[in-house]
């Protein structure tokens, strides 16, 4: 079992107006096999947490720590973090012209495993995973995310999740912009990774809808860079009924 531990994390970004603090002391502990939903209004710092865990250069960690089984994640480069077992399913996956999905997936798998996957089983695995996610085989020869619809991009994020088999995955609003069918397909993929791979999941979402398909063990409500409330799945139900207004009334400054 592995543990991802975030302690008193303060993160800021540089904007044209100057340095802007986003996360103001977030602490969170996730173990493999657990699913944590992080919910909250726009601008509360949910995506910042996701990007900071992955190591996006735009975000500056001012204080606090992130460790994976005691190892200092913040000291690692972006690719080292991925190889250590962290995965970020991006909110807006970028297009990479000139690089086919097949080439990209194999390169990533080789990097993560430290050796090239066995060609025969790998091809089979990719095909099977694509078919489960209802991805047409021809996508294998298309360039990474190039010309993909929003839903196709998200399904490819989950495809990578299933093939790269990380210890922890941060799903950054993977449900945004998906229709119900696509949402189900994507959720099934995440559930497979949780069940077969013992994935620890941080599920960042604005809506409660995805929580009908991926059951969280814990729900954390982000407001203005802090965790305002934590609880079990019942907290999500309450949010569904009441929305975030209750929290915003307490902290109206930077919604």
């Amino acid at each position, binding site marked *: 079992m592995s543990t991802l531990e975030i302690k008193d994390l303060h993160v800021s970004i540089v904007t044209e107006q100057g340095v802007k603090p986003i996360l103001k002391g977030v602490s969170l502990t996730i173990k493999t096999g657990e699913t944590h939903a992080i919910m909250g209004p726009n601008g509360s710092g949910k995506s910042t947490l996701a990007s900071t865990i*992955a*190591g*996006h*250069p735009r975000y500056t960690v001012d204080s606090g720590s992130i460790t994976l089984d005691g190892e200092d994640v913040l000291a690692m*480069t*972006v*690719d080292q*973090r*991925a*190889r250590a077992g962290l*995965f*970020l399913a*991006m909110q807006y*996956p*970028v*297009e*990479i*012209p*000139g*690089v*086919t999905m097949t*080439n*990209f997936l194999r*390169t*990533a798998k080789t*990097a*993560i495993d430290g050796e090239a996957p066995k060609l025969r089983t790998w091809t089979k695995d990719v095909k099977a995973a694509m078919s489960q996610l209802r991805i047409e085989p021809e996508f294998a020869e298309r*360039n990474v995310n190039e010309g993909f619809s929003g839903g196709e991009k998200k399904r490819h994020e989950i495809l*990578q999740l299933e093939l*790269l088999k990380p210890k922890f995955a941060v799903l950054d609003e993977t449900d945004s912009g998906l229709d119900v069918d696509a949402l189900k397909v994507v959720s099934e993929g995440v559930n497979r990774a949780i069940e077969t791979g013992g994935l620890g999941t941080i599920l960042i979402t604005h809506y409660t809808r995805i929580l009908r398909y991926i059951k969280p063990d814990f729900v954390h409500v982000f407001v203005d860079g802090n965790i305002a409330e934590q609880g079990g799945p019942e907290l999500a139900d309450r949010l569904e009924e009441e929305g975030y207004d209750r929290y915003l009334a307490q902290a109206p400054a930077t919604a």
Partner: protein
Amino acid sequence: MTELTEEKVMDAPDGQVWSQGFIKGMTEEGEQLSEINPASGPLGGSAANAHSHGDSHGGGVGIPDSSRAGRLTSYKLADFPLITGREEDWRFTPLKRLRGLDRVGVKGQGLDGDAPAVEVTKPDAVTVETVGRDDARIGTAGIPEDRVAAAAWENFKEATVVTLPAEYQGTVEDVTTLTLTGAGVTPAAAHIFVHAKKFASGVVVLDHRGTAVLSENVEILVEDGANLTVVSIQDWNDDTVHASAQHIKVGRDAKVKHVVINLGGSLLRTTPSARYAGTGSEVEMYGLYFADAGQHLEQRLFVDHSTNNCKSRVTYKGALQGEGAHAVWIGDVLIRKEAEGTDTYEMNRNLILTQGARADSVPNLEIETGLIEGAGHASATGRFDDEQLFYLQARGIPEDVARRLVVRGFLNEVIQHIKVPALEERMRDAVERELAATA
């Protein structure tokens, strides 16, 4: 990739003379005058300005540079005025770095160094000869279009002639290769003539290496029904200056594939031009360049559609990295009034890998008849950006591997069109080497 510029495909307006000086969304760099050369020439900025801002539609009177049709051609150096650096044709070239190639005949500047040594590998049926200046074939496929090429024409001592005999059927395996090894930094002239006789097919590779300050004319004569591929590789040492005017003349129902690969050298200026001598012919031009810190790689091509029902396709792609890396691509396509049924498309893509590199890309399409199949151009300069790098790294791929993955993918579109297995492999290796050099 961030697309800084846009594509645009145009339909020719009926009978209208149209000089396309710029395209919508063209990058600033592409539109600005180069600040490389001083603003003191007699032609001043007027010609270049009119051209680059596209406000001289079909202009020509009194502005020699504005239409490609009006450009001076001559075998005589004396016919060309001195280059000032403000001409449309020279505005991007750092003249100071030409090491005298632009000033031949001025203040005793000579062009009498030894031409590159020629080493030949070829199939038996193909002949390679060394001939004197008076050989009747010389001048049958080309004529200089700038002062540097004219200087080379006047000064070369011997020419190398490659002949694919009539109906010779070469394959991509039995390639004719001229390895041209530079003889040093004394300015030199060279002349090469590649001749595919009627219905011949085959591949000729010009492989430039070593160190040279060289002005070169390459004539490529493709007779009726022939199918010729010429690959010109410039993989010189870092201190090399090389101007290469490559003149293609393509006969009736003939096909030519011309590939320019610019990798090594301080300043490379490659100017391929294609002219049609018959109908139903096809010209494909590919280019691949990789500019490193301090390198100036300039590609200026011209396709002159003067006969009907001919086709041309131009695809140039380049990667740039490092401080002062500069790539220039100018694509002039002229569809003359008599060239009805022309089908042309030209495309240039640049991938900027680091800060400090600059790409200028200017497609110029002049259409003098509306009765064409199609005419289009595209130019885009993209940056390998931090988001792409982040995405790949977030999948465990180290930065250097990520960079290589993207560049390899980007350039592969051109490499896979070379269709000569040995060369494709070499080009892939060369790209790896370029990437490793500054990674």
